């Protein structure tokens, strides 16, 4: 990049004069730890309150301070909420990535950047952008910030409000809503609100006085639209935690790991708010364990003792939990494990999203182990599985993994208000002392009385002389006695397989979307949903191609998945990992249809986007 002294940015008028309204994306390039999240969320929230569907994606580095961060805000009047990899409007405070950020803009794109040094460290005033086919606006970040006289320590933080003001002016974002958003952010505290909003207004006014709107992008309030009406904004990890609180979670053990920590941290704060008895005693316990081996061990212990227990982790933690979840599978102990997936292998990219743990988690544990997996796709399902996972775990007496991902977990998403659980808790087959009394003390821990593969258990502390049994990860007979007998082993494993078949029907069934006459279909799961919905619309609209769609909600796979795929010439299995892991699992479970499954898989740290899916379907017809 040539460095010259340049007071004015080039501002060639390029667009045809047509306004592009509520259908473009912003990207805000900053560095992490500088407080830009407040500004970004403020913009997002203001748009949301204007009735404009807006989706935010935070692309942040795996450190604490000073490395590049990008925040994407997609504005879309049709309520498409998937990530778009192309942003038209760049706001940047990050000198280090300026060149690549500029290069990524489409022709006719917009770049907003400082004319002085917001952090006092970089020479924005001597930079020449490398392209002349985009619109530029320059803003005096430092100067305006200084006007507020902020505490030196807070200067960098406050400075972000300058772009909020400029963007509000340039793209017509409601200042009232911005104030509301800030007020929400600062919990109504007058001082920070006035300080921050003061600077927003200053910047807004400066922009109004000094900038000429030359680009075609506009936001417009959609007062009649229902996309955001009665909706909330929340992160998936908070939704999961809230769900668990309403699932009656009794015990949480965890070990910090990005991007799952906020599940536990939200649990901590929601539990503190909502789960005490009249005397203020907690109806839950939460432990930060010394590592993941201990976290999973604790929840297995708590689950065995009869509590609804959970942990949250990410890839490396899943690896470390293999031995214990194998035990829980075989000894039939309920437990709920949230895996907020990030990019692997290994430590990988801790702050990038992926769906890479599907196969590994489903088979987690040596020696013929199969784990139950739930696959939430949105905030509603994060909340729902938050409570429902306990029902499944206790009903099936097995670990239940909920595979969310960083995209769902750590981004703000618009959501319907969560529905209160529609049925009482299912605590599964537990025999009390009274039950045992009635049975004359006759029962066997691993005997399949009901024919569903699920047996009865007692909890420690059951006051009956026949209540006790011996729990073990070694081979056992129906009475939980140690056994090396071939028949005992076989019966037990057959029953476990049968239980997994029960699970196939019990677990959430796939969501199916069918049109008459479609010959091809997409199968997918989890956070890909937004992009797939959009891609299906485009395939119809642009290419007149009808595509049906099945979204998997759980593993082991429902027989409905098999029935569905049998109806199509070709089935595209779309997912966000390298291997095409779900396609692999489907090949295993539905070998007859394996030849017609097309794996559409990619993993680059970003959520999938509609254009890419569309192109894959078209390419591989």
């Amino acid at each position, binding site marked *: 990049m040539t460095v010259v002294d340049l007071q004015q940015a080039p501002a060639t008028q390029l667009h045809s004069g047509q306004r592009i309204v509520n259908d473009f994306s912003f990207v805000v390039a900053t560095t992490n730890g500088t407080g830009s999240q407040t500004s970004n969320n403020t913009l997002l929230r203001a748009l*949301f309150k204007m009735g404009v569907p807006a989706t935010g994606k935070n692309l942040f580095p795996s450190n604490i301070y000073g490395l590049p961060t990008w925040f994407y805000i997609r504005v879309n009047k049709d309520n498409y909420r998937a990530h778009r990899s192309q942003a038209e409007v760049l706001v940047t405070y990050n000198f280090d990535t300026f060149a690549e950020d500029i290069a990524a803009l489409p022709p006719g794109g917009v770049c907003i950047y400082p004319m002085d040094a917001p952090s006092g460290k970089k020479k924005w005033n001597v930079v020449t952008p490398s392209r002349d086919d985009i619109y530029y606006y320059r803003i005096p970040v430092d100067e305006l910030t200084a006007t507020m006289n902020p505490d030196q320590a807070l200067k960098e933080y406050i400075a972000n409000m300058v772009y909020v003001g400029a963007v509000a002016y340039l793209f017509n974002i409601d200042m009232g809503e911005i104030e509301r*958003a800030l007020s929400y952010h600062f919990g109504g505290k007058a001082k920070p609100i006035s300080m921050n909003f003061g600077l927003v207004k200053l910047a807004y006014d400066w922009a109004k006085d000094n900038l000429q709107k030359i680009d075609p992008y506009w936001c417009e309030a959609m007062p009649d639209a229902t996309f955001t009406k*009665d*909706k*909330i*904004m*929340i992160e998936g990890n908070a939704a999961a935690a*809230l769900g668990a609180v*309403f*699932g*009656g979670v*009794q*015990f949480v*053990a965890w070990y910090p790991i990005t991007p799952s920590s906020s599940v536990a941290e939200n649990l901590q704060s*929601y539990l503190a708010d*909502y*789960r005490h*008895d009249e005397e203020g*005693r*907690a*109806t*839950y*316990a939460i*432990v930060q*364990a*010394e590592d993941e081996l*201990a976290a999973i*061990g*604790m*929840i*297995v*212990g*708590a689950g*065995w*003792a*009869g*509590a609804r*227990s959970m942990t949250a982790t990410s890839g490396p933690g899943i690896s470390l939990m293999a*031995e214990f979840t194998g035990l829980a599978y075989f*000894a039939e102990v309920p437990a709920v494990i949230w895996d907020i997936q990030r990019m692997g292998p290994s430590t990988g990219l801790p702050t990038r999203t992926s769906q890479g743990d599907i196969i590994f988690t489903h088979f987690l544990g040596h020696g013929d182990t199969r784990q139950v997996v739930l696959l939430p796709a949105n905030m509603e399902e994060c909340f729902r599985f938050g*409570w429902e996972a306990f029902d499944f775990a206790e009903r099936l007496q097995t670990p239940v993994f909920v595979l969310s991902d960083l995209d769902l977990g750590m981004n703000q998403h618009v959501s319907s*208000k*969560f529905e209160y659980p529609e049925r*009482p*808790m299912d605590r599964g087959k537990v025999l009390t002392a009274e039950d045992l009394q009635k049975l004359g003390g006759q029962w066997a821990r691993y005997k399949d009385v009901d024919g569903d593969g699920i047996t009865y258990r007692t*909890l*420690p*502390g*059951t*006051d*009956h*002389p026949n*209540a*006790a*049994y*011996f*729990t073990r*990860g*070694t081979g056992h007979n129906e009475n939980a006695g*140690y056994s090396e007998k071939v028949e005992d082993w076989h019966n037990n494993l057959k029953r476990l397989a049968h239980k997994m078949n029960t699970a196939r029907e019990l677990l959430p069934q796939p969501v199916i979307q069918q049109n008459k006459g479609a010959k091809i279909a997409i199968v997918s799961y989890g956070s890909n949903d937004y992009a797939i919905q959009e891609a299906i619309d485009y395939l119809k609209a642009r290419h007149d191609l009808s595509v049906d769609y099945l979204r998997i909600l759980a593993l082991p796979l429902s027989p409905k998945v098999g029935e569905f795929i049998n109806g199509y010439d070709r089935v595209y299995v779309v997912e966000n990992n390298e291997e095409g892991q779900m396609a692999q699992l489907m090949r295993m479970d539905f070998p007859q249809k394996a030849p017609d499954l097309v794996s559409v898989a990619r993993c680059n740290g970003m959520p999938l986007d509609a254009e890419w899916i569309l192109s894959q379907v078209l390419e591989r017809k």
Partner: protein
Amino acid sequence: MGRTKTNELGLLAADYNGRPSTLCPGCGHNSISNQIQQAAFEHSLDQHFVVKMSGIGCSSKTPAYFMGRSHAFNTIHGRMPSVTTGVMLVNHHLKAIGVSGDGDTGNIGFSQFKHLVRRNVPMVYIIENNGVYGLTKGQFSATADYGQKTKYAGKNELPAIDLCAEALLADCSFVARSFSGDAKQIRSLLRAAFSHRGTAVIDIISPCVTFNDAADSTKSYFWGKEHREILNEVGFVRGQEDIAVDYEEGKSQDVQLHDGGWVRLKKLDESHDPTDRTSAFRVLEQARKEQVIITGLIYIDQERATLVENARITDTPLVNLPEDQLRPSKATLDQALSELFG
């Protein structure tokens, strides 16, 4: 008397039996099992509210051999501490008796052991310490004596970990040591431990008849050369009678093990103040220097808050709370949602 005597619960000693042991005859662990069930009987422990917890190893199998009316969880190798932590937090009315081995606790489970102790999880934590991995046939564990030799594992070149000192350093609130043959001492330590609120660690030297069999180990039996010549396979186990010792507080006693080896035990007396942490360290350090096994209650702190107390949970154990105390109301959900941006 004896056999027909009942305890406060009206139970016979035999009601505290478990299944027959499948350990080697003469294994120190069997003596300990006997003392656990005897102490539980004497203490009138309600078995329905006892959980027997263990890891993996010969020692970790023993919960099957005592107190058959208690729930038990034979978990995985070295991880009994975390499982017990979970159990006790959700049902603090239970009494947890954990049994572990020196490998289970000092090797693979070392971190869990230390962190459990640090948290002061309410439980009795018994280590059946033989300096070897019994179940996998005689490899050295971390508590093996420096320089110790066994015929299966050669010579140990590493210093022994002292699990009592480790517990103490991790702020353990009850630290004791005993010898598997000392029925009376074990029983009295167990009864004290049953009454303790926090983590009570009892490290019991418990000779492995089969594998820890060289003369120069503090935890061993000696087998003559003659025998070794004949027996060059692990497949043969020579059964033994249990060893029993009985000696006074403050005294030391040299115990001859079946095959000629000796251990020197020394019982703490009243001059040791078990509430003084510094002196507890000193006693252990002294024993280390003198190569004796100090037995008795080494340290106790009755004040330290337990993990359960710190958790400030309901008096009713969490597992016994009814649904309406676990699932907040619809109004609460509405409240929570209203606090979200929306």
